[in-house]
Structures are given as structure tokens and as C-alpha cells.
């Protein structure tokens, strides 16, 4: 890697943090809503 590697690695780290964070947040929100539906007996076989 060159002397610019700090910029390259930072760019990939931004991608990991933002898109990885969004993926984790989206999956956990889906699981939370599913649990609430299940607790209210609103989940159904699909």
C-alpha cells in the first residue's frame, strides 16, 4: 500500500460502519417487531 493507505482504509471502514450498522439495525428492528407480533398472538403461519 502507498502513503495514501490511510485514506483508502478509512473509506472502506466508513462503508463497513455505515452499511454494516444499517444492516444490523434493520435485522434487529425486524426481529423486535416479530417478537411483538408473536407476544400479541398476531404472528401467523405463512
Amino acid at each position, binding site marked *: 500500500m502507498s502513503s495514501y493507505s490511510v485514506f483508502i482504509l478509512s473509506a472502506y471502514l466508513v462503508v463497513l460502519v455505515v452499511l454494516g450498522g444499517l444492516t444490523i439495525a434493520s435485522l434487529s428492528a425486524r426481529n423486535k417487531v416479530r417478537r411483538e407480533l408473536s407476544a400479541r398472538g*398476531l404472528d401467523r403461519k405463512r
Partner: protein
Amino acid sequence: MADLHFLANPARFRRFSQRVMPSLGFATVLAFAVGLYLALLQSPPDYQQGETVRIMFVHVPSAWLSMGGYALLAVLGASLLVWRHPLAALMARAAAPVGACFALVCLATGSLWGRPMWGTYWVWDARLTSMLLLFFLYLGHIALSRAYDDPDRGDRAAAILALVGVINLPIIKFSVDWWNTLHQPASITRLEGPAIHPTILIPLLWMAGSFLLLFILLVLVRTETEIDRRRLEIAEQSA
């Protein structure tokens, strides 16, 4: 087109997304593994920009997806306002934060690419400013859709913003042709064909495909969540 109308029903959409999501998730992970190998290890440094060209493999796909995501919001907004598709509002609520995150990635990686190439993290040129405006349009859409006690009113207000804001997309695309900008002109989507060597173009297109898979996956997951959340709200109101 008949298939798209079939999916406009939230329950059918939910069944469809649950069927495709496992294979889509697997394909996304696999595509990113290959894409990162191509982008970081296999592709050569650029003859002018050296190793910093590797930032392009995440910067350009995120720019494309943030613009494509906003075009999707406009289509969904029109579907909501004109045809009142029940799924359009829920999918727009799901897609807006995804598009905003891709716009943020585009701005941040562009800034990190600009520092070594231009000597500055930011300049108020037409391309960068219109891209920043796109990010703010996404934030406005998210805020508007959640600003009312009645979610239908919020969805309609956000749909109008999506339709008005779509004028920014051609401005972003052609800003480098219409004005003198520090940002380089188009080098891929040109009438004369791409100006990039295949050893760099192929990893770029592969990464763009990986980003597209992730975008679709996130929109599906979040739309499913919005459908379930709306069911919970209806159940709470009727209790």
C-alpha cells in the same frame, strides 16, 4: 408488469420476500467477498491516481445506488399519490434510510478520495453540492414521513417531496458537463463508451452489483418490518 401488480399486496410481498431473502443474503455475502478481493488485491493501481483509485470501487457504486434509490422513492411516491398502492408508502419508508446511508457513504468516501487527489476534503462545486442536496432530500423525506400523527398524511407529504426532489438527479448527473467542477467528468456512462481500462472497470462493475444486492436486501428486510409494524399499529388501535 403483472408480476409487479401481484406484489403490490403487502401479504403477497411478505411471502415473496421471505422466500427470496435467504438466497439473496447468501449471494450478497459471496458477491462482496469476490468484489473486495478484486478491488483491494487483484486490480492494478491507476497510472495517475495510484492506489487511491481503490476508493472508487466503493465511492461510485454508492453514488449510483443513492441516485437510483431516490428514483425509486419518486416512483413509489407517484404510485402512492396516483394509484394509492398500499405497499408504496411502506416501501418508501423502508427505502429512504437505505438511500440516505448510501448517499452518506458516497459523500464520505468522496471526501476521503478528494484529500489526496485535490488537496482538500470538500469544495463547493456543483457535483458535490448537488450530492449533498440529495442527502438532505433523503433526510427531509425521512423526517416528513414521520412528522404527522396520521401516517397517511406523512406518507403523502414525503411522496410530494420525492417527486419534487427528483429534479436533482439530472442536475447531479450533468453538473460536471454544465459547470466547471473540480470533480472529474463522467468516465463510465458516456455515449463513446467507458474511458476506464477493463482491469479496473470489471472490479468496479462487480462491486456495483454487490452494492445493488445489498440495497435490494435491505429494502426487502425493512419493507417487511414496516408491514409488520403497521399490523401492530392497527392491532393497537382496534384494541
